[in-house]
């Protein structure tokens, strides 16, 4: 199916171009032949006209000769004049012959007429030269005015008629050429009409096809945007669900399981208080030890899942706890600084905490860093979190682990951005920017929830100074 429009387009445009090229070539050839015909027509007309002129002037000249010789008092040099006359006669005969070679049909009759009259005319002239002096004197005027002039006039009239016919032929030729030209014009017009029509059809087809393609592309784009959005939504929901589960698990471990251990501890205390036998006391001590260890382990586990400070006191105490924990575990020196007013919304708090946690873990595990600075700040319209270490650094273009991707994902869910600035050997600066939403200002009486409303811990937890 995909192939069909392509074939139509190629055939259509190709055909259109071929038609145009063919029509143009044909028109050029036709124009060329028209010009050729026109030139030929003109040349023929002129040649025939010249031939007629030759005949006419021969007739005139011959008349003049005859008159001059008749009017001469002596018949002297008649031979020479006869020879001249003979030349004129031969010349006009050859002119007649050449004219007869291409004769228009309607010229045939007058031409025949002219030819026979000229023949007769020559014969009459011949006769006049055979006269004696007396005869000449006696007949010459009569011959001249009654024989020669009428004949000559008649012949010239015939020649005029033929000339008119010749002109008529020229005009006819012109008309014919005009017709041909008209046909060419019509042909060209038809060709233009055909190409316009073909072009319009093709353009219509192309437009329809392009619109169809556009609609298809639009649809696919919409689909892909939608599926991307739903993917992001899904991953955001997964992150939220995971956090919720961690929070629930942490609370459950802390409030139920650890408390059960502490109840066991208390009961063991109670039994010990009854002054049991020494061997019982040994077992009770053992129970106490196991329960105490269990309680501490469960509590630590709960903290690792989600530190209760995050929900009880807010972001900064949780970050400081995290910093202390990492410090105790790995010897990494972590400084936490914060410029914040009020507490962040729940999702932002969790996002910042998890990002910093991941970053600190990276510092401890991969970066071979000795000191890290964590800074959380509210600036104009946004929350800026930076984590700077003095570790080995890496090339962010090359390898981004799952941890970094996770951080980026978390930041993006809240409409924020995530940047890493690092070079091998130069430490790593991680920067997360979150758009600042309504910051939760602590309520004066957070009685029903486990939210701390005291003075920020960082402000005066250090000894005076």
């Amino acid at each position, binding site marked *: 199916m995909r192939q069909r429009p392509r074939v139509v387009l190629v055939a259509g445009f190709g055909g259109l171009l071929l038609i145009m090229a063919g029509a143009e070539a044909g028109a050029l050839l036709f124009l060329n032949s028209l010009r050729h015909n026109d030139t030929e027509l003109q040349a023929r007309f002129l040649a025939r006209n010249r031939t007629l002129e030759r005949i006419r002037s021969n007739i005139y000249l011959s008349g003049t000769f005859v008159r001059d010789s008749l009017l001469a008092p002596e018949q002297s040099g008649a031979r020479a004049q006869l020879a001249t006359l003979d030349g004129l006669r031969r010349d006009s005969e050859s002119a007649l012959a050449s004219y007869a070679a291409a004769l228009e049909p309607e010229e045939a009759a007058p031409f025949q007429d002219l030819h026979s009259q000229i023949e007769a005319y020559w014969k009459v002239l011949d006769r006049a030269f055979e006269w004696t002096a007396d005869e000449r004197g006696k007949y010459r005027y009569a011959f001249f005015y009654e024989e020669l002039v009428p004949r000559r006039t008649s012949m010239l009239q015939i020649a005029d008629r033929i000339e008119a016919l010749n002109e008529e032929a020229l005009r006819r030729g012109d008309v014919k050429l005009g017709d041909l030209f008209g046909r060419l014009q019509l042909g060209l017009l038809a060709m233009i009409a055909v190409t316009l029509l073909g072009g319009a059809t093709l353009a219509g087809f192309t437009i329809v096809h392009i619109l169809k393609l556009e609609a298809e592309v639009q649809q696919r784009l919409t689909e892909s945007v939608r599926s991307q959005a739903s993917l992001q939504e899904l991953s955001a929901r997964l992150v939220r669900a995971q956090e919720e589960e961690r929070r629930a698990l942490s609370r459950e471990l*802390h409030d139920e399981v650890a408390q059960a251990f502490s*109840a066991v501890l208390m009961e063991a205390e109670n039994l010990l208080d009854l002054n049991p036998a020494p061997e019982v006391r040994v077992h009770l001590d053992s129970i106490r030890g196991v329960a105490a260890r269990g309680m501490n382990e469960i*509590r630590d586990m709960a903290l690792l899942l989600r530190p209760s400070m995050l929900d009880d006191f807010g972001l900064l105490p949780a970050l400081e706890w995290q910093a202390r924990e990492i410090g105790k575990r790995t010897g990494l020196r972590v400084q936490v600084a914060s410029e914040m007013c009020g507490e962040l919304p729940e999702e932002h708090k969790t996002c910042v905490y998890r990002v910093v946690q991941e970053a600190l873990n990276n510092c401890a595990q991969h970066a071979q860093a000795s000191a890290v600075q964590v800074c959380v700040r509210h600036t104009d319209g946004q929350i800026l979190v930076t984590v700077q270490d003095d570790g080995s650094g890496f090339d962010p273009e090359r390898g981004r682990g799952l941890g970094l991707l996770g951080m980026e994902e978390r930041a993006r869910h809240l409409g924020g951005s995530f940047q890493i600035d690092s070079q091998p050997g130069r430490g790593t600066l991680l920067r997360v920017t979150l758009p600042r939403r309504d910051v939760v200002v602590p309520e004066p009486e957070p009685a*029903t929830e486990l939210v701390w409303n005291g*003075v920020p*811990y960082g402000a005066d937890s250090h*000894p005076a100074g």
Partner: protein
Amino acid sequence: MEQIRILLADDHNILRDGMRLLLERQPGFVVVGEAADGRETLQLAQDQSPDVVIMDIAMPNMNGIEATRRIVEKHPTIGVVILSMHHDESYVIRSLKAGARAYLLKDALKTELIAAIHAVVEGRSFFSPKVSRILQEDYIQALGRKDADDSYELLTGREREILQLVAEGKTNKEVANTLNLSLYTVDTHRTHILQKLNLHSVPELILYAVRKGIIS
């Protein structure tokens, strides 16, 4: 000998039962009430006016720290002993700032519990060894920071003496008697100490003393 009236605040029944049993077996202790959440604790503190409240932090309906703040605010004579699972300094410090005098972890021995109760009744402080250690570590760490200087050095010998006595929970009158000074002089010294250490209340002063290892 007058009995020490104790109020238990913990949202776990088993634990409260066990504790009541343990405490009531001790001579001189009487448990006057049990509360399962913060608000109930406030109410019972008001109604029963106990000498000591043994307080859990993680409780529904107002946490133990906030309950401590309100009780100490309203009834300064009630001594609060925090008995919590939390051993992080953020909990310890907030509890002390709220006015708690003792902080025990839930794996505390009976002897620690009894010692803590007696301490707060006498106006002194008491901490689980682990908690003391955490506070002192925190202080040492703070000393290690460049910006922290040791304002303790600013105090005179007499001021240090008074600091210790006040931190131990002695009233101005008791301090005056002990050191053979006039009440007015002790009061002046106290003001100077708070100024020099940049502290604002007795709980802060106690916290400072604990961190410094002046008292434990």
